[in-house]
């Protein structure tokens, strides 16, 4: 039985998240500790700030109710295929895409845990895992993107919205019942359309 369970699929965990970039590897990794990476690779990796909301059974006891922060390390391994080809555009950019305060949404595989000793700003505890995530799908929400989102949102809102509160329950309720009315009228029609045959 154990042979069977031990042979269970060796697939890496897949994570997804959205958070603010803290900065690129070029400033947050001790480059002398990982000389193999090189300048371009250091631009194509970085750290993202995330948090978990936790509420223990007794909120005033450790770990205390609230948002607990953590960081993850994102890397596009451009020295290996297929990323050398996939990330050609990224490697050709002069600047890193891991600007601080840019939002990154990403889904990817966890490759392992980052060695704390190569981090400029390592976590407090040795038990802390800094996930190394290789994105399968990702989106850098650059500042320009965010501006256009907020602009289009503000353009769309004023005209027909009677209320400014997006959570106004009036948005979801209405006095008329169009759906029910329609079905009943349809039902009536079908009734009328049926040839009236006298029942025997």
């Amino acid at each position, binding site marked *: 039985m154990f042979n069977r369970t031990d042979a*269970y699929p060796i697939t890496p965990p897949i994570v997804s998240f959205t958070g603010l970039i803290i900065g690129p590897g070029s400033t947050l990794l001790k480059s002398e500790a990982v000389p193999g990476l090189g300048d371009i690779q250091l631009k194509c990796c970085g750290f*993202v700030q*995330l948090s978990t909301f*936790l509420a223990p*059974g007794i909120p005033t006891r450790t770990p205390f109710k609230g948002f*607990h922060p953590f960081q993850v390390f994102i890397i596009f391994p451009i020295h290996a295929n297929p990323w050398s080809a996939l990330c050609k555009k990224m490697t050709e950019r002069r600047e890193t895409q891991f600007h601080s305060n840019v939002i990154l949404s990403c889904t990817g595989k966890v490759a392992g*845990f980052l060695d704390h000793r190569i981090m400029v700003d390592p976590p407090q505890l040795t038990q802390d895992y800094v*996930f190394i995530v290789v994105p399968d799908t990702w989106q850098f929400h650059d500042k320009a993107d965010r501006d256009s989102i907020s602009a289009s949102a503000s353009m769309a809102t004023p005209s027909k919205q009677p209320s400014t509160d997006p959570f106004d329950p009036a948005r979801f309720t209405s006095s008329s019942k169009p759906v029910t009315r329609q079905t009943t009228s349809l039902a009536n029609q079908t009734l009328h359309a049926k040839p009236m045959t006298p029942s025997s």
Partner: protein
Amino acid sequence: MSVPTPTNEDNVHPRRPLDNQKNIGGDMSMMFFTRSRFSRKFTSPDEHHIKGLNVEAVAAIIFPPPPWISIPEYTGLLACSENDNSNYAYFSLNLSMYNQAPDPSELTDTWFFMYGRVHPYALTWEVGPNNYYTIPALIVRDQGYQP
């Protein structure tokens, strides 16, 4: 298999949550295969490690290293695992089992595929007088698990 064990107060530094919600990012969800041990069911809500989740276990997750990480350019990136033969990592798995099968004991050594939130930094729980338990956490709600 070195499993995190409760420690006493001397080396405990309970973490504090953040003061405000500004720029803290969202949470991280994870899909993973896991096998767990030492499961226990809490009888009182006060004992819950995560409010509303009445079962806790130590879950082992395999993180197989991808081929690219072994090429020379990436040497030094990975943290050396404490026990070199494995790429296991241990988490405190929290889930709910109210009036239903499977019994928590059935969790032991069965592989499950789960979907939940992961907090990869260690958190500390008080599990008894002067007895603390420090481990990263997994939160699996709404039956996000199957054997």
